[in-house]
Structure formats: structure tokens, C-alpha cells
């Protein structure tokens, strides 16, 4: 091997191969980063971490300037609710109930107070809430209330507060760290409750409490008051049903469908990643072309040596081997360096992702590694074939 290599390494152009390696490294890095980032970011949009099931829609009346000025109610009347539940697409309709009294809340994490504010609760019928039933129960006399918070609160805390106050970031598994103290002053009473956060909701921008507590507390703290619901929750067979859009438009209602938003975001993400990967691929293909040209030139310059080796009894496969190993070695080195760079880059952006979305698992670099190995295999097979063909041409005396 040594003698053959000593012969065939003549005319190897280090600048050419270095140029190829750099260009290929750049292209490979972009392709792998695009793919890996896509795989890392996708779960943020498609993560099924909703407190509600999948086929739910939240419906409200459209608020327009006209309705605001004329003071038209944005609430649903009983007749309207009945009408909706009689529609064929609606499987189940529930009302949002809001508190009729004032609540002050103090929220702390690990004993440090971070928020003190007036807020209001909402509730929906228990059969719409997709949490284990035993943790979603309340009966008169209990001083602890199960609560579902909007996920935006969590993001706000993790990104804005925990960061600047060097406090622990909270993920879904660590909700127990949140202490919530609720002060209700109404109807002459002055009561303190403890809130127990049992989860976060992506789709509801409300602080959700069990229906049982809502019914009891409204009766207890604000007797005689009863408002009509301004939002309804509806279970449908198929969220893509045309009749829903038609009905909603006709009645001048609005539907919050963040599934649709997630799909839009996923689509945009996919488009962006495809564009970025395409750029990387083009760079890779061009660099691959440089490598092939360089190897062509090398084989051409060493054609006489290759021919002499063939004439003294070496097989074409044997004399092609050094060049094949050279190209595979270069490709492999580029892949390894690209993966190391990717690991560094990923370490950086994964930090940001977990800060913003602590519920998303960190995943692994497996997708990029698999893609990289697949690309390496593909490129290597082409390299091997092209070099074989060149040497065969020399054998046949065509060069």
C-alpha cells in the first residue's frame, strides 16, 4: 500500500482539496443545521400538550367598532346556544362561566413572590377538560383550588422573570413549584384560598377553575348575579368541516382555532427550512463538483503511473482504492467537523428554545447524524463509481 500511495499521491493538490473541504463543510453544516433545527423546532408547534382534547373550538361573537359603540351585548343568549348545539357539526357545546366577584392573586415560585394582581377565573364544564378527573375536583369547604393557567404566563415567567432573577425555570413537570394565593373579598367575606396549578393551556387565555368551584363561589360571593356567557366551547367531529366556517360567518361569530395557526407556522417553518437546506445543498453539490474535478485532474495527471501499475498486474480496483479512500476520508472528515460545529450551534439555540418552551423535550442530534451519514454514503458511492470508471477507461486505453 505504501509504495502505491507514494506513487499515486503525486500531483495531489492540497489547496484544491482544502478548498473542497471548506466549501463542503460549509454546505454540509447548513444542510444539517437546517434539518436539525427543523426537527428541534417542530415539536413546539405540533406538541399535543393541550388541556383540551383535539377537536375543540372556542367560539365568541365578533367584536366590531359598531358593536362597541352601540353597546350590543357580546354574550350568547340561551336561544343562540340551543341553535348552535342543534347544528349537525356540533357534538357537544359548553359555556364559559366567569366570576362575578373580585379576586386578588399572589403568585410565587419557590417562596419568592413574583406577581400580585387582580384576576378573574373562568370555568368550562368538566367533561371538556382533559386532565385526570381526581385532580380536577373541588367541593365546598376545600381551601385548595385546582387551577389551569394559560401557557403564556409560564413563558412570560421563564423568559422574562426567571432569567433576570436567577430563578429556576419551570417546565410542565415542575408546576408544584408555583404557589398561588387567592384573596376573595366580596359579599362581606374575606377569604384566602390556595391555588394548585395542575397544568397549562395553550388554547385558553383564561385562568381555569373547576365548574364546581365556579358555581359555588358565584352563588356564595355574588348571589343573584348571573351573566350570559361571552364564549362557548364546542366539540366537533371534524375541525376542517366546511359547514362550521359557513355557520360561523353567517352568524357573525368568531372561532379561535390555534390548530390552524400551528399549521400555518409549521408550513412557514417548513418553507424556511427547505430554502435554507436548498442553499446548503447547492453549496454542497458545487463543492462536490470541485472534488470530482480535482480527482479527475489527479487521475489524469497520474494516468501513466496508473497504466503502468495495471500493466504489471495490479487490478483496476486496487489502483482506484487510494483515490477512493482519499475522497471518502475527506468526506468523512467534513461530516465529523460539520457535526461538531452543529453540536456547538445546537447547544446555543437549544438553550433558547428550552428557555422559551420548557415543556419541549431536548431531543437529540440523531436526525442530523442520520442525514449526514446518508449524504456521506450517497456521495461516497458516486465518488467510488466515478473513480472506478476513470481507472477502467485507463485500462481500456481510452484516456
Amino acid at each position, binding site marked *: 500500500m505504501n*509504495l*502505491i500511495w*507514494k*506513487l499515486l499521491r*503525486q500531483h495531489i493538490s492540497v489547496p484544491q482539496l482544502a478548498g473542497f473541504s471548506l466549501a463542503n463543510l460549509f454546505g454540509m453544516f447548513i444542510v444539517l443545521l437546517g434539518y436539525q433545527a427543523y426537527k428541534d423546532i417542530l415539536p413546539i408547534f405540533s406538541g399535543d400538550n393541550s388541556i383540551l382534547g383535539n377537536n375543540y373550538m372556542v367560539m365568541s361573537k365578533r367584536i366590531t367598532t359598531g358593536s362597541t359603540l352601540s353597546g350590543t351585548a357580546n354574550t350568547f343568549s340561551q336561544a343562540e346556544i340551543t341553535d348552535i348545539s342543534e347544528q349537525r357539526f356540533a357534538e357537544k357545546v359548553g359555556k364559559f362561566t366567569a366570576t362575578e366577584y373580585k379576586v386578588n392573586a399572589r403568585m410565587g415560585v419557590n417562596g419568592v413572590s413574583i406577581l400580585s394582581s387582580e384576576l378573574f377565573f373562568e370555568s368550562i364544564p368538566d367533561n371538556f377538560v382533559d386532565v385526570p378527573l381526581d385532580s380536577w375536583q373541588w367541593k365546598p369547604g376545600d381551601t385548595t383550588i385546582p387551577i389551569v393557567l394559560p401557557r403564556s404566563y409560564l413563558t412570560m415567567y421563564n423568559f422574562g422573570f426567571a432569567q433576570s432573577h436567577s430563578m429556576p425555570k419551570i417546565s410542565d413537570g415542575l408546576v408544584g413549584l408555583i404557589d398561588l394565593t387567592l384573596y376573595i373579598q366580596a359579599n362581606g367575606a374575606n377569604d384566602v384560598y390556595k391555588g394548585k396549578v395542575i397544568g397549562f393551556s395553550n388554547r385558553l387565555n383564561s385562568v381555569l377553575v373547576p365548574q364546581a368551584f365556579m358555581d359555588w363561589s358565584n352563588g356564595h360571593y355574588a348571589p343573584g348575579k348571573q351573566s350570559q356567557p361571552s364564549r362557548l366551547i364546542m366539540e366537533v367531529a371534524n375541525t376542517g368541516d366546511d359547514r362550521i366556517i359557513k355557520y360561523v360567518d353567517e352568524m357573525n361569530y368568531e372561532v379561535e382555532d390555534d390548530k390552524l395557526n400551528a399549521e400555518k407556522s409549521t408550513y412557514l417553518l417548513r418553507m424556511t427550512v427547505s430554502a435554507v437546506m436548498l442553499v446548503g445543498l447547492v453549496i454542497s453539490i458545487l463543492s462536490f463538483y470541485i472534488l470530482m474535478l480535482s480527482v479527475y485532474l489527479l487521475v489524469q495527471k497520474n494516468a501513466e*503511473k496508473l*497504466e*503502468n*501499475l*495495471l*500493466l*504489471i*498486474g*495490479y*487490478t*483496476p480496483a486496487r489502483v482506484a482504492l487510494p483515490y477512493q479512500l482519499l475522497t471518502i476520508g475527506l468526506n468523512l472528515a467534513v461530516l465529523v467537523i460539520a457535526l461538531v460545529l452543529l453540536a456547538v450551534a445546537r447547544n446555543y439555540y437549544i438553550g433558547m428554545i428550552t428557555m422559551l418552551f420548557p415543556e419541549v423535550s431536548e431531543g437529540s442530534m440523531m436526525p442530523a447524524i442520520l442525514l449526514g451519514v446518508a449524504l456521506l454514503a450517497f456521495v461516497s458511492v458516486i465518488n467510488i463509481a466515478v473513480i472506478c470508471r476513470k481507472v*477502467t477507461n485507463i*485500462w481500456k*486505453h481510452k484516456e
Partner: protein
Amino acid sequence: MEQIIFKNVVPQVFSQQSDLHSDIWNNELVLDRGHKYLIEAASGKGKSTFCSYILGFRRDYSGSILFDNTDTRTFGVSRWVDVRRSEVSLLFQELRLFPELTAMENVLVKNNLTHHKSRKQIEEWFEMMGIADKKNVIAGRMSFGQQQRVAMMRALVQPFSFILADEPISHLDDTNSRIMMDIMEQEAKAQGAAIIVTSIGKHVELDYERRIKL
């Protein structure tokens, strides 16, 4: 391999020539293992072409060349590799040494493939041919005569049934020619192989059984 037969072989370059008076071209020639042949011709008559047909690196001829009754046109790559490694050895007229390698490395590059001779044996040849001091000299810096001897050693480090020497002693003095040809004869005898020497005039007298006019 026992026999090489040329049957009506005409190189394409001679195909337009009607007055080919040759024992080989457009004729039938049988070369048997164990015999010695001298092929004589003036320059340009196709001596090297003849050698390249036997080694399978040119196929620009009409007619057929048979190795033990098998047409060599049917040979694939691996068969030709076998021929070059263990049946036919050729000392090229243009030598085809690797100028970047030392004299010893030029021989070893072949011996590493065949493992036919020991390093000791090769060193003995260097001694006998009078170029022991050139073993580690880059081949490109040696005289043509010295290179001819290196090329001969490279031709001998393989098993063969036929050895072809294409103008082997063109740049050697009589003493060195004699020594080199003796070594070749000895090796051929040990293997029961045929010797085919081409010459444009200057050649070492071996007891040739046939002189062939090209």
C-alpha cells in the same frame, strides 16, 4: 499456459498494406512454452505492438490471438490480470519504471503483488548485475542502461510461462548484457518458460530455436 498462437493477425495500422512479408502479421505463428525465440525486425515493423497484444493492452488488430486455444478477445479484466501476474512477463522497451521510486522500490512494487522472490534474492541480483550501489537511488536519476537492469529484475519477480524482452540490451555493454540474459535464462529454465526476445540487430546469442522475421 502452454501455447500462444497468432492467427492472421494484422495490426490496424498495417491493414492497408498489401505487401506484408512477415512471419507473424497475416500469417500463423505458434509459440510454445519452454522454447526460445528471437524476433528480428527493423524499426517500425511492430515489435512493441506485438508485445502489447500479448499483454492485452492493445486490441487494434484483425485476426485472432489464442492462449491455449482460447481467443484472448474473450478475456475479461480479471483474466488479463491473471495473465499479467502469473503467465506472461514483459520487459518493456520503454521500461515503464516509476521515476519517483528507488531502484529497489521499483522491483518491490511488483514483488509485493506476487510475493515471488525474497528480498535477499533481489539483492543478490542487484549485486550480480553490478548496480548494488544504486538500490536506493531514485530510478529517474539512473542511466538508461542501469534502468534496463532494474526493469529486468521487475520482470523476473513473478511466475510466468512466457517472458518477452523487448530490446532488452539496447543500452548495455556485452558483459552486462550477458549477465542479465543469463539470469533471465536461468529463471525461465526454472519455470519451464519460453523466452521471446525482440531485436533490431543487437542481441545476445542464446540458443534460439527459431528466428522470426517480423
